[in-house]
């Protein structure tokens, strides 16, 4: 295979597949075979004839050699003569023309850690509430499982004090999922907040969230809605927010890897590699 054909070489003639009516014939034949089922067998017979001749014709079109036509290639006119336009730069990323913003972010693991830590803080507070007021560790856990049950099926408070394996598993899964998701969100969003991420994200955020839940909790978890103590609820939300927020902001930000040149991302760090690219990258088309 000759290299020069690709890229800058003078165009030569091009071989293109030759036009042919056989695919058409074959399709028509097949269609008629079926159409005969709707109308009359004679149509099917005609179809079969066309089908066979189409098949043979097509076969001979590609075997033993594919038929081609030679099309003279005209040299392409100059393209890309649009005057090069200057490209604006972002003030934050003067040196990187293709920014993947922000330049530095918390790693995913920060969000995960934050979410888990916050989740533990929240669970501790909620269970404390259960123990202090109901002498039961399981009370708040069972409440979470209430999102599975409709109002008439809601058990009495008594029934909520005892351990139930199914409910426990569900509650645990829900709690972890939600905490992880919100933790991830913190990892992503805290740096976006204008000032004081902990106050905004850790305290105001959860309070607003509690306010929102106050309205819609009945739709999500009627049981919890019925039994809830909003002060404690808000408190544990804030506990989550503060702990998760603190954990997240204590992590080190890392460079967004997408901004680095491919060579570097690929782990090739020998100097000069970028320039080499520049050398053979003059012209992509010819």
């Amino acid at each position, binding site marked *: 295979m000759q290299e020069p*054909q*690709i*890229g*800058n*070489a003078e*165009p030569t003639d*091009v071989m*293109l*597949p*030759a*036009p*042919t*009516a*056989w*695919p*058409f014939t*074959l*399709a*028509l034949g*097949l*269609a008629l075979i*079926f*159409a005969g*089922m*709707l*109308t009359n067998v004679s149509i099917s017979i005609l179809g079969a004839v066309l089908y066979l001749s189409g098949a043979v014709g*097509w076969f001979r*079109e*590609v075997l033993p050699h594919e038929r081609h036509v030679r*099309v003279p*290639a*005209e*040299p*392409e*006119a*100059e*393209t*890309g*003569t*649009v*005057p*090069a*336009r200057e*490209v604006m730069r972002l003030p934050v990323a003067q040196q*990187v*023309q*293709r920014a993947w913003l922000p330049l530095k972010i918390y790693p995913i693991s920060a969000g995960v850690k934050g979410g888990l830590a916050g989740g533990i803080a929240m669970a501790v507070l909620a269970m404390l509430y259960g123990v202090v007021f109901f002498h039961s560790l399981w009370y708040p856990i069972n409440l979470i499982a209430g999102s599975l049950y409709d109002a008439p099926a809601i058990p009495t408070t008594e029934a909520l004090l005892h351990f139930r394996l199914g409910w426990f598993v569900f509650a645990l899964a829900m709690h972890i999922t939600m905490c992880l998701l919100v933790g991830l969100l913190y990892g992503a969003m805290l740096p976006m907040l204008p000032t004081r991420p902990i106050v905004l994200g850790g305290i105001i955020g959860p309070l607003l969230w509690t306010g929102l839940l106050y309205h819609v909790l009945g739709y999500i978890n009627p049981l919890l809605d019925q039994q809830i103590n909003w002060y404690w609820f808000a408190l544990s939300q804030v506990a989550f927010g503060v702990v998760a927020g603190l954990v997240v902001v204590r992590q080190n930000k890392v460079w967004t890897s*997408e*901004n680095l*040149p*491919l060579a570097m991302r690929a782990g090739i760090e020998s100097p000069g590699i*970028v320039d080499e*690219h*520049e050398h053979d*990258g*003059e*012209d*992509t*088309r*010819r």
Partner: protein
Amino acid sequence: MWDAEPISKPLAVPPVRDAVQPLFDRVHGWITTVDHKRLGILYIVYALFFLVIGGIEASIMRLQLIRPHNDFVSPQVFNRMFTMHGTTMIFFVAMPVMFGFINYAIPLMIGARDMAFPRLNAWGFWMTAFGGIILYFSFLGGSGLYGAGSTPDVGWFAYAPLTSPSFSVGHSTDYWIIGLLISGFGSIATAINILTTIFCLRCPGMTLGKMPLFAWMNMVTAGLVVLALGPLTAAQLMLLIDRYLGGHFFDTQAGGSAIIWMHFFWVFGHPEVYVLVMPAFAFVSEIIPVFSRKAIFGYPIMVGATISIGFISMSVWAHHMFTVGMTSYGNAFFVASTMAIAVPTGIKIFNWLGTMWGGKLIFKTPMLFCVAFLFQFLIAGLTGVMLSVAPFNWQLGGSYFVVAHFHYVIVGGILFALFGAFYYWFPKMSGRMYNEKLGKLHFWVFLIGFHLTFDFMHIPGILGMPRRIYTYEPGRGWDTWNLIITIGVLFQAVGILIFVYNLVSSYFKGKLAGDDPWDAWTLEWSTSSPPPDYNFATIPVVRSRRPLWDLKHPEDPDWKYE
């Protein structure tokens, strides 16, 4: 500077048109062609023709429903109209037009000279074409023009046992089966072709990660066709066996099941709707960056979202069956999987917004259509999410709310994106510019018509109006809404007339477009308009996702950063 002629090179002589050839040669040329560009255009013209047919069928329905107790058409004719309208629009408008654009653009975009199997490509098109012709022959077949022949009247999803020989006498259902079967074979062939082309024919340097998003999304489209059309074909074969050989697959009187047809159909039917919408996503992903003058936002994430939509969409089919009495666990599963699709779809919407954000938006007609697409697809997706809430679906399913939902996606989303694509690639395909004024007029008229029709269509659904009824009682609170809906169709029709006029007149006397009227970045704009038979005299070599950007900005190329 945008409005100035962007190309400074002398424009080539107007391309030699077929007009100089005798008619027979021209027809012969089109029939025997294996060129992906000509086949693409064949697909597109074929689909436009059927769009008008399907639209006229829709107009007939809308006229009938304009007021209660109307008797513009008989129930038999009405039922045939919605069956033919739905079937035509899905199988002979939306699919072919998408295949047309894919066929036309993919080889150009990936720097290839043709599809992987050019002859198979031709076969695929002709199968689709003959499928449509067979289906429409039903107007003439059977009892002839009077009484609308033996046109199928079983709805586009042809639920059993309405299709069984005892409820559907004569050949009407057979026309439906066979028409779709034939075109289905063609679609599978074309999809295989597209996949192979994208896998094997990319130009040097175009790794998977450097393909235009257009290629990615249509790769997933083709993958979905390959996976999803099989089940439809299989189900139709079974139905044929029932009807011709006395089988009992869907024969409820002999123990057959009506439900299993629903499963089989929707295992196809749901992925099918993503087959239709993915190419629309692909258009938008090309047009928005160019008219925002920015690279697409979050390319790798877009790719990931596309693939995950493809996967998830295979597991949500039974959301069309929330009312058939599945167990609560079954219902809950399909609620979850259906809603999961909102996440990757949302990611796409946000990434398009991210692309526009901070750009310099240029509102030429293609961009207008894309912005409208974003707006309407958002709403349509949200009504989809409402429908996916199974209990809510028990109320909304099978009502005009569903009809509104899917026309919002299909017309408001897909058709709008498609019009955008038409205007965007028309200069490439014909070598001439369309008329911008008419384009904008088309946009606004069609926009008004669309919203008149399909915004108000949600309401009768909420007020209890089922779909597929040829008439209704007064006094249900549906009358006014139906009137408005029908009026909107008039605007839509005018819009489409303007569009067709614009295409035709610009084809003959539009300004010459030049190779690259949009100052765009993908390979198809580097060759002449219309491209020569061989696309590229020399096969291009690319180093980034935007090869023409690299060319135009040698001081600041993309490839350094990808």
